[in-house]
């Protein structure tokens, strides 16, 4: 069991090492940390010996076995795409949602279903142009608000800072959509709940996204505003290999940038991350390589399965078999990320 520390150690081990994943968990209700123009900044020293910041940060420590036990009921062994109950192909049936989504609009459809069915009363999502034009966390309580957050941001956006907003507003059944690092953080929050805020009860749903890396918010914004009209930049899209490019919607049409050019903008934290498919979410969603307009959906927990079935039942989600070859390919890709991370951070 890892020792828990405070802000001093968080600063030393994560912030000063440049290993912040910009998940936003540490910003929650802390006056000593803030997010400024896409970066986590420590404002002053805190003398608390065991703080939420250190405990919830995905980059300080992660007790795989304990989290697995807590989420799945046993210490999951699968090293590639994590424990799962089912893998399927899926897409939103509603054309507005499908158009808003990055691939098939599955995440949006799941959340809209969850809201409608009362599984959740609010969702912590990531939206473009929050503070000073940077993407950031947002609390959505209606279907329209959820749809407005659709689309991948490809940026460490400190989204979990909005969880504090949701808690303060009194929501009792919160759903969260996050990157693998954010999912891990939320699982630690539920497990440790250092201030006994009943997080295990109040957080009802965790949807994770597939992720290989995310850009640093500040550096990506600088890159974009250096080349394009920043406030006119629209969707970002990373087509499947072997494309190796980034597609950016601008007021001058879709621009293509070689990935090698933007690799320096990736958060150093991502190089150490072994989790491609958000192994600890209730449901994980990603692109379906080779099938435009569809998503890969991994169902991991009872909660996830219930929502998946409900969403299909009420007609928000359409689903098909996920072919074995594609599953093997996905597991390969996940294993590659794990291998790359192990080279950077052997002790996992």
């Amino acid at each position, binding site marked *: 069991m890892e020792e828990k520390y405070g802000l001093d150690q968080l600063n030393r081990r994560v912030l000063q090492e440049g290993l912040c994943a910009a998940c936003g968990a540490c910003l929650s*209700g*802390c*006056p*000593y940390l*803030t997010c*400024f123009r896409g*970066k986590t*900044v*420590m*404002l*002053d020293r*805190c*003398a*608390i010996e*065991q*703080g*939420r*910041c250190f405990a919830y940060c995905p980059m300080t420590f992660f007790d795989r076995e304990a989290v697995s036990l807590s989420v799945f009921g046993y210490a999951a062994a699968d090293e590639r795409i994590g424990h799962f109950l089912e893998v399927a192909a899926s897409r939103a049936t509603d054309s507005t949602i499908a158009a808003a989504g990055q691939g098939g609009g599955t995440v949006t459809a799941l959340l809209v279903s969850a809201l409608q069915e009362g599984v959740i009363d609010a969702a912590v999502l990531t939206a473009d142009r929050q503070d000073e034009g940077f993407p950031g966390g947002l609390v959505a309580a209606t279907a329209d608000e959820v749809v407005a957050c659709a689309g991948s941001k490809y940026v460490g956006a400190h989204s979990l800072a909005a969880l504090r907003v949701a808690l303060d507003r009194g929501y009792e059944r919160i759903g969260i959509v996050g990157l693998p690092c954010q999912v891990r953080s939320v699982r630690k929050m539920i497990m440790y709940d*250092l*201030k006994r805020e009943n997080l295990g009860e109040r957080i009802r749903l965790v949807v994770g996204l597939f992720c290989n890396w995310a850009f640093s918010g500040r550096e990506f914004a600088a890159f974009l505003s250096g080349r394009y009209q920043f406030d006119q930049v629209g969707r970002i899209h990373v087509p499947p290999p072997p494309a190796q490019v980034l597609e950016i919607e601008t007021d001058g049409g879709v621009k293509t940038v070689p990935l090698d050019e933007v690799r320096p903008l990736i958060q150093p934290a991502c190089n150490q991350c072994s989790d491609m498919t958000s192994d600890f979410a209730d449901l994980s969603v990603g692109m379906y390589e080779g099938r435009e307009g569809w998503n890969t959906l991994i169902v991991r927990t009872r909660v996830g399965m219930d929502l998946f079935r409900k969403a299909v039942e009420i007609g928000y989600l359409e689903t098909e078999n996920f072919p074995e070859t594609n599953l093997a390919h996905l597991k390969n890709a996940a294993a590659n990320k794990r291998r790359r991370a192990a080279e950077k951070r052997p002790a996992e």
Partner: protein
Amino acid sequence: MSLISRNSPGKEVLLMGNEAIARGALEAGISVATAYPGNPSSEIIGSLADVAREMGIYVEWSVNEKVALEVAAAAALSELNALVAMKQNGLNVASDFLLNLNLTGIRGGLVLVVCDDPSGISSTNEEDSRIYAKLADLPLLEPSAFHEAKDMVKYAFDLSRRINNVCIVRSVTRISHARGNVILGPLPESRPVPHFDTTVTLSSLPPSASHPVAHRRLKEAGDAFELSDFNTYSGPDFPELLVITCGSGRLFALEAIDLLNLEERVGLLSFGTTWPLPEGLLLRHLGRTGKVLFLEEVDPFLENNVKGIYADHCDTLPRVAFFGKKSGDVPDMGELSPGLVMGIISRLTAAALPKEDPRYAEEAQDALDNFCPPRSLAFCPGCPHRASFWAIKKALALDGRDGVLFGDIGCYGLGFMATGFHQSKTLHAMGSGVGMSVGFGLLESLGATQPSLTVCGDSTFFHAAIPALINGLHHKSNFLMMVLDNSATAMTGFQPHPGSPVDAMGYPAPPISIENLCASLGVQTVIQDPFELEETSLRIHDMLRENGTKVLILRQECALFRSRTKPARHKVRIIPEQCIGEECGCNRLCTRVFRCPALIWDRDRKKSSIDEALCVGCGVCAQICPSRAILREET
């Protein structure tokens, strides 16, 4: 009704040392008195300013000590008597002019009173200014008590007129700020009309001509000092131990000799005129003892001068063992005190110290522990500097390039302490913050990556910052100067400065605008209210990201100054249920970090609360509470 202007010769009154000095100047018939505020000298011109109109004299709080001396010199060159007062640092500022004025001499009378601060209790340094007398070949007097201070100043003007040169009177904190009985003398009926004799040029050139003249004038003073009543001796004709002292040392020594019952064994030779030293008087006493103890503050000035004279005459004098700072018997820094002096004399004479109740030390320590907890210096409740440094702290954190804040002198000088969140990284002399910030901002071409910034008060700005600002602008230095404009020379007692609408004597005066001055230089100047914390920290951050010389005026009235005439802005209170105090998410941000004295941590309830007696209602703390537990309501 001021005591120092009372026309009651023969009346005995209780005066502060500085007031006695002021009275002495009035009795000498001064027409002009100037100074820049500086502890422990401020009350001299402060008390003269209060009676200026009544006495028909001109009194000025000058922009700095050099100009103060120049203004006084103009009067002294025009047949008048003029007084200039300053603390030790001020003499450093005035020294360039002084070391030219001493060579041209004067026509009227000019007394320069310098008040040193042994132990640097309220100074950035500890310095013994007496060396200037030697350096400038000017006579030096040191008062040892209150009535004497008055008489000495009066005498100094007399001497000054006679030798046609400046006379220096040196005081220390314990003389300037203590009080004693003074018998008032007569006040003059009239003063000369100023007139500058234009038939003669006043120049120190060539030094080969003017320097010998200065020496001659000094010798004339020295001859007068041989017969001066300010030099006294008490004790046996052939003392076992001769204490040679001056200034505050005299009363400490007298007290020690009395308490140790050493009147028959120890002699006390006290010099009021310490440069030039009356050789004749000195040699007479040196010939009658084998053991000498020097008591003086701060440097071995008297000690070395006596030893020099002894060396000149050593073949005709008996062997003397000298004890003092050189021997290590007296500390070579810090104030003297009754206890310290008594201990030294007791050791040198083997006289037993008076019996002290064995419980005393214990009870004293107990009282200290329970009633005098150690407290760091702090900005007053409602001080705009607290808000400014808070904003600077945040701005530097957001900036992330390890910016360097060069500090300066004033209340905001405390910026290097906890009350200023340890933001200031340097503290030297008046205006040196901006000078060094300019210098640091020029190091970019040599590879420096850290932003350069400085804080400077409104009074400091006029005192010394302007030349450095111009230097920075012209040399294209990349730095941010934040003028902390609280509309007051607060640290020293709210004296007016050129930005004020009144002068020392209370007459209306045109306020000089800092922003107009900066704008006329062509430097980007922004004005901001530091009480708007978020806005201010963003403003500082954004200015740090720009290149070049930048001025940000953080303007908000001093809380003490404001409270004289205006009511509290807000009623501030804490909602205890909202306060999370020591818990994660706060860790007592308001009482542990922000530290306004009006915020109290209740250890029993584990909540913050507001001390209504101290809170001035600025409302700034309400902006920093992470739990929104501090409520402010506009009054």
